[in-house]
């Protein structure tokens, strides 16, 4: 490692390489590096693109310091990687202060953007309304009558709780429980759920969603599906085994489309590993930044941010990636998929593949209220 800047362009990656979110960090990092390698091979940028990454340990303060270091000491022109809303909020703050584009990996809170934001771009984790709408649609489509939800007692979980009220169809038998964020034993909550449960919504308790699913099965609740947070599919496969087939997680990369298969095929060939949705987020970040630098014809971070904000990029998502005026993701489709044994078509050596349970309708940024900062 060492300073970039003089003879190359640096993308800073604030990765959770250790700690609770480490499974996200390493996968995202691999996808990002792959994208940068491809960009350099294609040679459409004047300068070599490099990735500088650091371990945030999932800590907001640490990420903030690293952000400044990247920008001021390593001359990074763009930043990506943050996982978790707390880190997302703090780094978004800095992106605006230092005027450097930031592409978030997984930060779902809707209090991320203000109407003045111009440098913060959401990618992997959608804001709560966009998280709940696909599930609401699924309930209607499958005509689920009895739905239970467990949300975590912190910002995200409570937002999900509100959004459930807002989006879920009236007239279903719905029970919502709130559990501590660190809880991993949900038996008492689950025992209290109604009989004949069709669906358990666990997206409001990301750290506990796997436990909720296994414990519900152990208790023999006999529900159809559990919907859970956007965990890397490899983690789901490892942790759940066969139970992963009834655990539907949310993602936006269109793993069933040709573009994804293309990239994944190249990745498998080059790296010998299976390319998943979360590799995808890293890949998209690398690609979009490179294209924006090219398009802006400038290495000024602010110019790069303007391009990301204003243009639209064809990526491995179902729809082109585009943002509204303040950087909220716009016109996106998300999918609910389960994980099954056996590699996908594009990588038959893989251990698992995804199967789609549901694909949402097109969702626009207008459904998310931005944060209105107070007057002082």
């Amino acid at each position, binding site marked *: 490692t060492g300073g970039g800047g003089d003879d190359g362009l640096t993308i800073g990656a604030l990765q959770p390489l250790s700690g609770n979110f480490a499974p996200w960090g390493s996968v995202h990092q691999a996808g990002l590096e792959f994208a940068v390698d491809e960009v350099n091979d294609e040679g459409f940028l004047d300068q070599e693109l490099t990735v500088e990454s650091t371990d945030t340990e999932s800590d907001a303060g640490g990420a903030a310091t690293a952000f400044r270091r990247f920008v001021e000491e390593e001359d990074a022109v763009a930043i990506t990687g943050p996982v978790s809303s707390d880190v997302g909020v703090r780094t978004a703050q800095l992106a605006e202060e230092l005027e450097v584009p930031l592409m978030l990996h997984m930060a779902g809170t809707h209090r991320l953007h203000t109407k003045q934001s111009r440098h913060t771009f959401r990618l992997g984790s959608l804001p709560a309304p966009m998280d709940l709408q696909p599930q609401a649609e699924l309930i209607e489509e499958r005509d689920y009558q009895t739905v239970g939800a467990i949300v975590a007692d912190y910002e995200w979980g*409570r937002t999900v709780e509100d959004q459930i009220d807002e989006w879920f169809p009236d007239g279903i038998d719905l029970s919502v429980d709130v559990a501590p964020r660190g809880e991993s034993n949900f038996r008492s909550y689950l025992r209290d759920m109604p009989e004949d449960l069709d669906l358990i919504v666990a997206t409001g308790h990301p750290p506990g969603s796997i436990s909720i699913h296994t414990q519900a099965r152990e208790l023999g609740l006999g529900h159809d599906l559990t919907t859970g947070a956007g965990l890397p599919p490899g983690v789901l496969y490892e942790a759940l085994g066969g139970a992963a087939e009834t655990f539907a997680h949310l993602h936006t990369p269109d793993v069933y489309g040709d573009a994804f298969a293309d990239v994944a095929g190249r990745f498998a060939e080059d790296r010998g590993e299976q390319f998943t949705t979360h590799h995808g987020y890293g890949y998209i970040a690398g690609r979009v930044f490179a294209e924006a630098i090219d398009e802006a014809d400038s290495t000024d971070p602010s110019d790069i941010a303007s391009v990301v904000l204003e243009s639209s990029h064809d990526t491995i998502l179902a729809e082109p990636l585009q943002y509204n005026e303040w950087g909220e993701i716009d016109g996106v489709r998300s999918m609910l998929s389960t994980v099954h044994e056996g590699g996908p078509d594009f990588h038959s050596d893989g251990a698992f593949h995804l199967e789609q349970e549901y694909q949402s309708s097109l969702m626009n940024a207008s459904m998310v209220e931005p944060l209105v900062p107070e007057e002082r």
Partner: protein
Amino acid sequence: MSRHPIAALRHRLGRFDDIALGVVVLAIVPQLVVGTGMTYQARLLTIALTFAIFTLGLNVVFGHTDQLFLFVGALAGVGAYTTALLADAVGVSPWLVLPVGALLAGAIGMLVSYVSARRGMTVIVIAILTLSLQLAIMELFGGARDLTRGSTGFLFSGLEVTFLTETLGFSRYVAHYYVLLAVLAVLLVGYRLAMTSKYGLAFKAIRQDEVAAESVGIDVVKYKTIAGFAAAAIIGLAGPLYAHGEGWIEPSMFSFNTVDVIVLIMLVVGGMRTTWGPVVGAGAIVYLEEQLHVLGQWRMTALGLLLMVLFLYFRSGIVPKVTAALDGDGRSVSLTDVTDRFG
């Protein structure tokens, strides 16, 4: 033994010469290490000063009276949340309500000290008591979502001094550094005054043998309570400054791991019961932590190992070691701790 008044004044002022020198050195630092428009080093410097103030508070209560406060983070949080929320509610500048936050934190510290001194709690009981309070208060910060916006937190600023930013043209972070330095300087002088007065003498006696201290007329409960109040108020005062430096308030900034662990390390590494220990310790640890980032995901492991080594083999602290080395050379000891010489 009467002294000439001017000589006496000299003598009094002479007790502060190391503080004056130290503050001047600290005042030059940003000019040397912070490039124009840079915020990275400036932020590290403000963090170091903020934590130096926290550590100074812990030094008073733990170093001098053996009350191990493991809720430094919570006290800082109380100061910060009180100041921010009150300023917001009343619609005034945070400067105006800053003392309220400090006093509230001070009152909590005072209460804890009073109760624990009355109940004759040992250091370990106080440690567990305050750790429990730390965790409970953290739950409150995170849980009272309507008031505090939960774990996400909110933007906070307003503790700037326009003279520094506008008239002198310092950047936001550098200006904040000087605000912190001014606070630190006042606290160092106060600390020196207190420790060379009868407070220092009482603390020293109490720490060694409470029963004996009481038997020679020292009101143990009173002095412990005073120490608890002073420390907590100092920490509660630094809390909002910390939040201002970060531009943000959220519970995890005040957690046991983020604040207490680090402050404790700083105190031990710098040197307990010394004037400069907290400052040196804070500087050393902030620097070290920043250097450790090259270790990537092994940073935390390295930090843990380093801590154990420091605690086991270096627990007398940097300042006492350096002082002893200088004393050994027979050279002057301008940075030495005056309390050790006078009482």
